[in-house]
């Protein structure tokens, strides 16, 4: 079995985020980066399947050359090898990312392509779905549990949906996107970090993949959310009810 899994490099949400002077991107100096949380869940799921089904786990990322560090993290956690497609964030949108990953699928032919359900920076939540469409493969998004059944022919996936859990079976090969509750990602142990040094990472330029790189989505502007307004102290319950009726209009 072979599993292809994504490791997107994103700005650490604990960093102080500032909008660049162009108003169309984030200021990337002086912020920390990390592996997208949902991708970490996807990698952990891939590694659990690696243990159970003797699968090869290939960790891939699309980004600038620093994204090699997120791939290394995936390899230090236990991935077998890596693929980096070099491209700056500005020249990408969700659709182009999906079409790039489709090329990697054609090249690697994995049994399962695992992704985070979304990236915590753009929050677009569409790459897994688009990828399944482009490849005409079944998709199981927002997975909270994955079991491989019927001798590796079918993935039984539990999905968190409004009000409960939906269980679906999808034939392999398939696309699965990971939700936070799928698992508790392991740390990259120190021996893992040392071993990852010697693991192979293949590198491509986006241009090598002969894709139409016209973007379908262009960021026009970014702005910070408006600051919260100060609260108001009310003197009694009557005044509160009155304000809820006349000002907030919720009663």
């Amino acid at each position, binding site marked *: 079995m072979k599993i292809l899994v994504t490791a997107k490099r994103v700005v650490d949400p604990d960093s102080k985020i500032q909008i660049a002077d162009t108003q169309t991107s984030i200021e990337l100096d002086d912020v920390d980066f990390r592996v997208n949380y949902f991708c970490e869940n996807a990698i952990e799921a891939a590694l659990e399947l690696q243990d159970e089904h003797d699968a090869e786990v290939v960790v891939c990322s699309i980004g600038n050359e620093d994204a090699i*560090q997120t791939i290394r993290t995936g390899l230090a956690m236990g991935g077998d090898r890596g693929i980096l497609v070099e491209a700056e964030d500005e020249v990408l949108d969700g659709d182009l990312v999906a079409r790039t990953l489709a090329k990697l699928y054609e090249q690697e032919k994995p049994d399962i392509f695992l992704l985070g359900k979304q990236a915590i920076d753009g929050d677009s939540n569409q790459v897994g779905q688009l990828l399944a469409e482009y490849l005409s493969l079944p998709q199981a998004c927002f997975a909270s549990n994955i079991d491989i059944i019927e001798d590796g022919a079918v993935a039984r996936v539990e999905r968190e949906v409004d009000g409960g859990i939906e269980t679906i079976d999808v034939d392999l090969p398939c696309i699965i996107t990971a939700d936070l509750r799928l698992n508790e990602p392991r*740390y990259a*142990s*120190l*021996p893992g970090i040392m071993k990852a040094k010697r693991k192979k990472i293949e590198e491509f330029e986006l241009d090598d993949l002969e894709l139409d790189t016209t973007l379908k989505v262009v960021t026009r502007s970014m702005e910070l959310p408006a600051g919260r307004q100060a609260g108001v102290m009310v003197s009694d319950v009557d005044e509160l009810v009155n304000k809820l009726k006349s000002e907030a209009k919720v009663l």
Partner: protein
Amino acid sequence: MSDLFNPTDEHRQLREMVRAFAEREVEVQAHEFDKKEAFNHALFLKLGELGLLGITVHPEFGGSGMDATAATIVHEELSAVDPGFTLAYLAHSMLFVNNLAVNGTPEQCARFLPRSCTGDLIGGMGMSEPGAGTDVLGMRTTAVRDGDHYVINGAKMWITNGCINDTELGDVFLIYARTGDHAADLSSFIIEKGTPGFSLGQRIKDKLGMRASPTAELVFEDCRVPAANRVGDEGKATLCMMRNLEIERVTLAAMSLGIARRCIEIMNAYASDRKAFGQPINRFGQIQRHIADSYGEFMAGRSYVYHTSNALRLESAGNRLDSDGVKLYCSTMAKNVADRAIQVLGGYGYVGEYTVERLWRDAKLLEIGGGTIEAHQKNMTRDLSRLPRIL
């Protein structure tokens, strides 16, 4: 981040991993174990799973095979959230594990290191005595050869990991003892819990800080230790001791760095947020001095520590001037930074909930343990007297 602090990509990944682990799993228990004065054994075992307990040990013996800078990084990162727990880690992984890895025979390493790297054995080291600290060659514990054994008599004091709770000894120790009449006739021995004549003396309670690391007195009464447990040649242990003191002092200095960094982060965040006289208090010169001086001193200390660790070779002695120097500078620096953090936070800084109170208590120990600052001043001045020019 500068390359000085993360000289290779592996060092950077190690720092990221330890920081994530510290923030997620170490921070949450720090206050409780400080209050209880208890050692968190379960958390210690997790360090083994991450490959941190045998960080400098060759993979052949179950270690991770990394260098002094890797050990420095781990101590800085863990100490930023829990210096007490980190001290127990240091006593095990530097004072016992690294010491044996560097000075032990392959047979001794094979017997003790694999189980020490997983945490199945908890180790420590015994040098100080009730009546001998800085004057280490004044130690009075003796080891007398008797056939295939040595008979050990004496006591060791202030031993971190000497016990793991109120009644139970730690598992295994490197103990220095006198094997001749000359002041420097010292040998070191591996002594295991359960050896006849070896017992737990006082459990040291009510410490000011570092309360999550257990401290005890070890007592030896006609304790018979197999000669195969002697580490190095008889009477030649001072070199082993000096070699290991260097990494001990650099990692203790790294613990001070962690304390200082955390205190600066806390006072910086508080001073940006807290208002007085209609503006955040970091607009006031008195507060600015606390924050800016602290950061400058921290970065000076941090640069000195990593400059020294990057040059430190674990298998050889010869960095004493700077391994004493980093601990001399950083221990007092961190104590002062913690003190300023309390001052900036005012009443909040004085109570446990805001963490700097604990860090201030922990910071003080580093001016005493692993060499008092007076011992560092003595050593450094002696070394400097032979060094007419500083290159």
